[in-house]
């Protein structure tokens, strides 16, 4: 199904992604090495004796040469061992897994919601290009792009949690409390993340569609008597999906970053809050682990987007 040229392109992309991941691990590790503060001293607190600190440093492997420490850290990560958190005293992998159970559903909900809003809106605007509904939509999206998601989150909290009391203002009951309560507490955060993203996505969808609508095959489709709706759905939209996918891939990284702030607004125990707290507590091993997971996620999503190009547009022979 995949042509050899696309296959080789994907393999090259896979290789460069892996290389980027290795580079990223070097950057993350060496950046955090220059952080002031001794993790052992920090863990034991102000009253600790020098002997106890030295013992813990030895136990944590902090006295080994830096290259050896990097190789140990990176090697263990490959086997899924992210080390032990200094402050929580549990494996970092467990912490990340526990927090991903909040962040991942949140990011996916936001992504789905923003696509579900943006693509129909973009389609609607493109079909009425230059007329009043189009200008109105463009005005609203222009505003949406300018709204910081955490401010939007505050407004949502005020309206739906404080005033109407429909949803909780923050916190997370955990998935064990049942799907519905958990889902309910992720709803406002997901909307706060999704709407500003939807504004960008709707603009891209619209301009990609307008670009596609000027192509010759659209004129052909019109000439053979297809309705405007059929042309938009059958011919224009699939062809306009490429730039939309590209932006979607790029936005995923923004979405992940957005969760850091949004999780702080809603006091959600996700990856964003974990990394924010770990940074303030100088829990370096957690910071390193979370950043590597996030970088890997961004690279993976962009690989999937690349793969999706091949499915959306089988003609696409990616230039080398």
């Amino acid at each position: 199904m995949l042509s050899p040229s696309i296959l080789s392109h994907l393999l090259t992309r896979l290789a460069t992604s892996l290389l980027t991941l290795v580079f990223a691990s070097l950057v993350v590790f060496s950046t955090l090495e220059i952080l002031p503060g001794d993790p052992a001293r920090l863990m034991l607190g102000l009253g600790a004796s020098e002997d106890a600190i030295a013992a813990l440093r030895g136990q944590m492997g902090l006295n080994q040469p830096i290259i050896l420490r990097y190789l140990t850290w990176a090697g263990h990560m490959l086997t899924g061992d992210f080390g032990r958190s200094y402050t929580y005293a549990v494996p970092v992998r467990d912490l990340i897994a526990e927090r991903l159970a909040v962040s991942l559903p949140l990011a996916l909900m936001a992504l789905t919601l923003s696509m579900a809003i943006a693509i129909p809106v973009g389609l609607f605007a493109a079909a009425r290009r230059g007329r009043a509904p189009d200008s109105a939509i463009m005005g609203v999206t222009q505003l949406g792009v300018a709204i910081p998601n955490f401010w939007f989150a505050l407004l949502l909290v005020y309206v739906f949690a404080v005033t109407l009391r429909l949803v909780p203002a923050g916190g997370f009951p955990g998935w064990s409390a049942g799907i519905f309560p958990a889902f309910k507490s992720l709803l406002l955060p997901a909307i706060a993340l999704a709407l500003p993203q939807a504004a960008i996505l709707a603009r891209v969808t619209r301009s990609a569609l307008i670009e596609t609508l000027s192509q010759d095959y659209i004129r052909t489709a019109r000439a053979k008597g297809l309705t405007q709706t059929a042309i938009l759905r059958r011919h224009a939209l699939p062809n306009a999906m490429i730039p939309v996918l590209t932006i979607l891939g790029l936005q995923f990284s923004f979405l992940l970053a957005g969760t850091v702030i949004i999780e702080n607004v809603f006091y959600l125990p996700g990856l964003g809050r974990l990394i924010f707290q770990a940074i303030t507590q100088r829990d370096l091993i957690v910071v390193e682990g979370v950043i590597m997971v996030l970088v890997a996620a961004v690279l993976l999503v962009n690989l999937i987007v690349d793969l999706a190009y091949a499915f959306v547009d089988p003609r696409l022979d990616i230039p080398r």
Partner: protein
Amino acid sequence: MNRSLIIGLTITLLVAGMALLSYAWTPYDATAIDIAAKLQGPSAAHWFGTDHFGRDILSMIMVGSRNSIAVALVAVGIGAGIGIPLGLVAATRGGWLDEMLMRFNDLVFAFPALITAIMITAIFGPGAINAIIAIGIFNIPVFARVTRGAALSILSREFILAAKAIGKSSGGITIDHVLPNIASLLIVQATIQFALGILAEAGLSYLGLGAPPPNPSWGRMLFEAQTMIGIAPHMALFPGLAIVITVLGLNLLGDGLRDVLDPRN
């Protein structure tokens, strides 16, 4: 005349004017605490009301605008100052240098920007300077990529060949012919990055990683408003509107400039 350009320019000038005015005059001292006047809604005395310390919100927004503008402006300067030369070198030299610069770009793009910004401010401590560096670093690959792409398309044009034929050096061609032709594109990009910088600064100072108190900043005003949202929603409303209006103005300015400067129009 272009409508986006006029509206965008007007808003941008108004915000810049407000920041300048704050050096000479604000309705109240932006840091003056007056507990007797705390949590008042908008009134004739306090147009945007007061916060939980009785500080005048309008005055705080005016003073806070300096911080937002300064951080975003310098961050754009860092991005453009390093990114544009990098992009030009990549486009004119090509080869392994180009390849290396582009891979470096990919690397920076793979890092969730805000998280790295949090990491940087965590290393060097919170503060305006570190926020500038954190935001500035992510502007570098943006400018490098835009510059490289635009420069490559200019370099393939005939007048570049003509300049080469009369023996002009590659550096001279870049400065005299490539740069002026891509300047409008870079100005538009700078406006967009400026707007993103305002948003990023607000996000960082919301998380407590921006300029330290008592200097007012829009992001921290929103953080402080969060706990008061049930009793004083106006505390959240006005700083947020200030951010939205500023970013909207800059985006409209960027759109307008793109339309006006695009030679195809």
